[in-house]
Each structure stands twice: as C-alpha cells, then as structure tokens.
C-alpha cells in the first residue's frame, strides 16, 4: 500500500485551501462524478495495488535509482542526489501516472483512452500503455508542439495512437487540453481521459499526485538506506502543471524539515511578457476546471504562456502547488530559457546525463537557492533529453556562431 501523507491531500471536494474544485459544464459532470466516486476505492483495492506495482516494477523499471551526483555536488557545494525518473520506460516520470490511470480505466470498463500532451512525453506514455493494454488511444497535441517535438510524434504514431493536431488558440498544451476535454464531452460514456498532470477538475489533481507519489516513497526508502535519514533537506523539481514535483514532494509536504523547491519556466524572463512562471506572475482564477493561479488578462482571458520547453509551456499550475506557494510550504524559483540551457550543459558535462529541457530548469534552480555543504538535496530528474536534441542542436549552434563572431 502506498504511503499517504494526509498533508498532501485535498479535502473531499478537491480543495487545497482556496484552490482546486471542479468547475465543469454539466456535459462533463457524469464523467467526472464517476471518477470522483470510484478513484479512491479503486486505488485502494488490492487488485489495483497488485497490478499497478507489478507494472511499475517490471514494465516501467521501478524503483528508479537515487544517484549521488559527485561532480554536480562539487559544483553546487552540497550533496546532490538525482532521482532518475529519466530512466523510466519512455524516458520520463509520466508513465507512472499513465499506468495507474489506464488500469483504472479498465476497472471502470472504459474502451478508449484520450490524452493531451505538451512535450509529447505524456502522449508517448499514454500510447505506450494503451499498446500494452490493447486500448485505442487518441492524443491531442498543439501543432506548434508537434513541430518542436517531432520524435515523440513519430513514437506515438508508431505505437498505434492517433495524434490529432490542435490548431486553435496557442497551438500548445493549453489548447490541446481544451480539445481533449471537448472530445470527452462529445464521447462521454466509453472514454477515459488521462490528464497528464496535476491539473484539471477534482479528482484529477489528487489522482495524479497519488499515482506519482511513488517517487517520494522511493526517495524516502533510498535515503534511509543510503544516508540513514528519512527525508532530505531539499527536494528540487521543475513544475509546469506540476506532476513530477507533486510526486517528488508528496511524502515530504509539511514535514517541517524538507525545503521543497519548484523550478518554474520564466521563458524570456519573469517580467518580459513571454513567460510561463505562473506562481510568480499568476493571479487566482479558473483554468481547465480548477481554481488555481494562472496567467490572465485583467478581463479574465487566459494568456498564452511562453517557454522554450513544451512541457512547461502552460499558463496555469496545479492547485496543489498554488496552495503550497500560498502557505509557504514550497518555494518557487523562476528559471529562464537561457538559464535552462545552461542547466542542460551543466548536467551533461558534469554527469554524462542529457536531461530533458523541462528537467534542466530544476538543475539550474540548484544554483539559485541557498545551499550549505551539509545539505542533502534530491533533484527529481524527471525526464531525459532525447526528445530535445533538435532544440539543443539549434540552440548551441547559434551560440557557437555567436562566439565565433566575437
């Protein structure tokens, strides 16, 4: 049975303090209500737990290592452990949630899976598990993201998923989510919508956080073994919608000894107008069915986010994180596109690990927070960088060209 930290759970209506809830049109009510009624009994059933943990172990490749990054530790000046979610099958933490939700869909008798995706990691994870469990899968992806994450589009199609380009609005994650929700409205009874992050109407943020909490359960166990402690001094994770951060924080929320740090995508800069730093720039409102912080105009129109990383390019953030920030239970550090690219270089050269662009924000955040030599810091290495090689090549080529011009 998964360890459940009561401080990480919303109330029965899905509220973390003032954030959360289910602001959905009537057309979605039966679907969401069905999930709300069933998710905890299913999650807690012996059969689910057995199937879930077996797949996590044999298919996803869990537990993922907690690796003491010696070179990086020296550079930062503290003991840095990397939680190697990048070693999960399909290359990111996303699979934890998808395995759980797809099993749940089967329990609920659903015949089809839909998903939205930004960077494509959640889409690939969904396509993968659907291939395994023989469920038809439709993934909604912004056309802008399809262009910048081509290998993942190819993977999804190879796995048998239908990838539907979304041309509306920002052509990225926000509108992919809108289209997935609309599809769900139009095909309610047989479809399960696997949301990829701790966003959306209750019970999704809680459901996804619970499924990802395996990350912090393992961290606690591994630290006990490797360091003889039950909690680190710091956990650092990047946060777009916030699922990897929720999973890495979960067990340590409100424990009074672990400083939780979320790295937000600042894009061109927090005050540049081209940012995805929702905790820094957002105001309370509703996005995708939950009350949280989001970037919006004074008239309440949702603004487009900007980040070089498709996975963090989202104008909202999960309600759990909005609440953690409000209660000072976590701190959020903005990291610009440029700084994230430095993080990519740093980790690649220091440890021989090419991180995902999203994850690189967390690496950079290590250099922006106050750390002491005796601190024991866990960075959630949420994903690997294969999908970003085109972006890296392009960026570093430009950088070299600039250097050569000087």
């Amino acid at each position, binding site marked *: 049975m998964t360890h459940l930290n009561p401080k990480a759970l919303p109330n029965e209506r899905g509220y973390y303090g003032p954030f959360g809830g289910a602001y959905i049109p009537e057309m979605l009510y039966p679907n969401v209500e069905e999930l709300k009624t069933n998710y905890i009994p299913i999650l807690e059933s012996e059969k689910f737990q057995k199937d879930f943990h077996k797949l996590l172990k044999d298919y996803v490749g869990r537990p993922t290592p907690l690796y003491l990054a010696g070179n990086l530790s020296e550079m930062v000046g503290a003991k840095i452990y990397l939680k190697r979610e990048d070693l999960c099958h399909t290359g990111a933490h996303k699979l934890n949630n998808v395995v759980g939700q797809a099993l749940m869909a089967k329990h609920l008798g659903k015949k089809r899976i839909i998903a939205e995706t930004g960077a494509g990691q959640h889409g690939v994870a969904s396509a993968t598990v659907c291939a395994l469990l023989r469920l038809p899968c439709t993934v909604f992806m912004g056309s802008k993201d399809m262009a910048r994450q081509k290998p993942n589009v190819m993977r999804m199609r190879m796995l048998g998923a239908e990838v539907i380009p979304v041309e509306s609005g920002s052509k990225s994650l926000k509108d992919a989510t809108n289209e997935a929700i609309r599809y769900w409205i139009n095909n309610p009874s047989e479809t399960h919508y696997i949301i990829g992050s701790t966003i959306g109407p209750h019970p999704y943020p809680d459901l996804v956080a619970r499924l990802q909490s395996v990350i912090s359960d393992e961290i606690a166990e591994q630290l006990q073994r490797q360091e003889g402690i039950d909690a680190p001094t710091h956990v650092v994770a990047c946060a777009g919608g916030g699922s990897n951060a929720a999973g890495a924080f979960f067990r340590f929320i409100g424990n009074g000894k672990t400083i939780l740090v979320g790295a937000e995508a600042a894009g061109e800069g927090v005050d540049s107008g081209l940012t995805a730093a929702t905790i820094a720039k957002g105001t309370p409102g509703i996005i995708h069915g939950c009350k949280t912080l989001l970037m919006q105009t004074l*008239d309440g129109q949702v603004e487009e986010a900007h980040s070089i990383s498709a996975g963090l390019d989202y104008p909202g953030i999960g309600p759990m994180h909005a609440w953690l920030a409000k209660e000072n239970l976590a701190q959020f550090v903005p990291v610009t596109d440029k700084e994230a690219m430095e993080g990519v270089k740093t980790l690649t050269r220091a440890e021989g690990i090419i991180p995902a662009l999203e994850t690189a924000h967390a690496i950079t955040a290590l250099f922006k927070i106050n750390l002491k030599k005796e601190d024991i810091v866990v960075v959630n290495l949420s994903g690997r960088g294969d999908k970003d090689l085109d972006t890296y090549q392009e960026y570093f080529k430009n950088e070299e060209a600039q250097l050569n011009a000087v």
Partner: protein
Amino acid sequence: MNPLQTLLARKKKNLLSLFFTAGFPYLESAEDIIAAAEEAGVDFLEVGMPYSDPLADGPVIQQSSTKAIANGMTIPLLFEQMAKIRGKYEIPLLLMGYLNPVLQYGTEKFFEKAAENGASGIILPDLPMDEYQEEYEQLFQKYNLSMIFLVTPQTSDERIKKIDSLSNAFIYVVSSAATTGKQQDFGQAQQDYFKRLQAMNLKSPMIAGFGIHNHQTLQQAWEGLNGAICGSAFLKKLEQNPTPKDAMAMLMKDLGLQ
C-alpha cells in the same frame, strides 16, 4: 418578476431564443442584433460574454469568441453597450459566459451591473451547483436575476429534479452529449430524451439548445419541449451576411419561420 419570467409566464409553447457572442462579428454588433431579433419576433436572447477557453463550446462559438476578444470586447464594454440601449427594446436578455471573467470582474459587482443594465438572468455553465447554492443563490435573488442550469442526456433524474427545484425561469436542455454546433439532425435518441423529460412533470419550462439549425430540429424541439435556442447556426449566418438584419432573415428562412 424579471422580464424573462414575465415572458415565460405568458408564453408556454414554441419559444425561440438566439445566442450570439457580444463583439462578434464586429465590436458594436449587439444593438443591431438585438434590434433585428426583436423585429423578427424572437422571444429572448442570450448574450455571450466571450472567453478565451470556452470548454463547452465547439469551433463556431469558440472562433466567434476569439474574434470578439480580438475586436476588444470585455465585460465592462458590454455593460456600457447595454446601458446605452436600456429601455429601447423589450426582448429579455440573458448573459451567458464562463465563470473566470466574472470572478475577475468582481462577482457581486457583476450581478449588480448585469441587473442594472437590463439582464434577466445569467448562464454560467462551469459554476458548480453546490457552489451556486452556497455562494451565488443569494446574489441572484438580491438582484432579481434567474440562474439557468443545463441538463444533458447523461444527467440523472435525481439531479434534474434538484435543478428544477433551484430554477426560477427555465431549464436549458442540451440536446445531446456534445459541445455546441456538433449535431446534425435529431434522431430517436433525442425524442426519447425529450419524452423522458416531459414525463418528469417538472415545474420549469424546458428549452432545447445545441443542434437547432433547421426547420426539422426546431419543430422537434417545439413538439418535445417548450422552446428552442439557436446559437452556432445563427453565428454562421452573422459571419456570412453583411448585416445582422440579413443574417436574421436567412436564419428565419432556414428555421422555416419566414
């Protein structure tokens, strides 16, 4: 009673309502549309407050919202436009939109201004029922506004009864499980659904929306329920025709009313 309630007390059958997005196709379109609708004998209007992320709506309404926002439509501007024509037309007006822009405008101020500028009621599809009861019902009462709830073919009888008890104008019957503008013609499923609703003997009149676009769908809604709301089909006409008056004439022709 507000003007909508007065209308519904007087007219029980064959009600016709139109939805349009304020600020679409041009920023000052609202008055022209209201004038054309009143002249054509439309019973009441839903004025859409455009939102960037309208989850319940299909591409037609979504695109009209994007265009209206680009044209500069906002809630304060809509209230200004309504204030200017206050008293000039008799057709009851409802405001329809998503909760977030209302929250940002200021909830109580929104209700106050809506009532002051002549609205009879408000449709907020993403306002949860329990939150309505706890925080909003008293505001609706204070400003003499009607809240309009939606029901769909998936809504349980128990929930429909609760919605009926909370309603003081009409129930908005979503014709099928779909976003707006998705439906072709009404089949057996819709007719059975209308019959099921009729058999429940609810106190509120029921008006069907989503999919009303021609003579057949209008007649089926009128036969099965108390009225019909036409949205996407009207927006298409507004887009295709030079003036709202022309659009109205074309729509009425399609609906077999002219």
